[in-house]
């Protein structure tokens, strides 16, 4: 039986609580992994491994967190902001993230705000649906 979004959210919360040493009430859907929850680069790999184990899915890191490979492309980034082409590319690569706030001012320093708890839940939901 397919998991409901709430069931996925609960398990994602558990993954983040374990991986980042948090209290459960800190993990809200709107929380950003780096800014609010204090995740560092190695934590992202830890989270990826835990998601794979918890949900039995394959999580290529560049799918969930594609920023690294796109940031160095001058077509996509100019003057510290994403170009329209860059923004389109990021949106295409990260359908699990909500760009509505970021779009107004696509400052690359704000890119990390796209990695929210909700984005991880969306990502897992899509993966599970693909597998189903």
């Amino acid at each position, binding site marked *: 039986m397919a998991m409901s979004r709430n069931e996925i959210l609960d398990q994602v919360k558990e993954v983040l609580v374990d991986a980042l040493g948090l209290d459960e009430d800190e993990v809200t859907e709107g929380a950003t992994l780096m800014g609010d929850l204090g995740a560092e680069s190695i934590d992202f790999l830890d989270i990826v*491994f835990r998601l794979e184990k918890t949900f039995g899915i394959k999580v290529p890191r560049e799918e969930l967190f594609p920023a690294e490979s796109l940031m160095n492309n001058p077509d996509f980034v100019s003057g510290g902001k994403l170009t329209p082409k860059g923004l389109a590319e990021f949106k295409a690569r990260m359908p699990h993230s909500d760009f509505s706030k970021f779009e107004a001012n696509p400052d690359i320093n704000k890119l990390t705000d796209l990695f929210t708890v909700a984005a991880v839940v969306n990502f897992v939901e899509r993966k599970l649906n693909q597998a189903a």
Partner: protein
Amino acid sequence: MRWIWIDKFVEFESGMRAVALKNVTLAEEHLHDHFPGFPVMPECLMIEGMAQTAGILVGEARGFSEKVILAKIKNAVFHHYVRPGDTILIHAEMESIAPEAASTTGKITRGDTVIAEISLMFSHIDKNLAGKEFPEENFVFTDMFNSLLRGFVGQKKESKP
């Protein structure tokens, strides 16, 4: 000199699991201060022993081509003291391995007693710190480390048809 916190491997299954043995002795000078009159193996050194056991397991899985660095202590729980004269076994199991990193779980036992449970994450640093330069040679897996595996990894390769 590397401070090696395991004496030898007693089991080694490539990419799967490894068990290392350490004999704890009062000849280890730090035990005289940790603590005066009450010598016990520091818990941080048990973590280091696990990091070496699991780190070699991770390194061997990729033919020692990666520079494997302890990146994160996911979990470390200690249930009992380890004293001079104790023989401990450090059991490490591979949980996940990817091009950039690996995670392991494990425990330390003395006889039937579980002393500690330790889960770690390792980074393959060349894959994760792009743009930073590291020496070509693998400074993680030195001869001293490799000598620990003699009789396990070599033997296994030789026995292949």
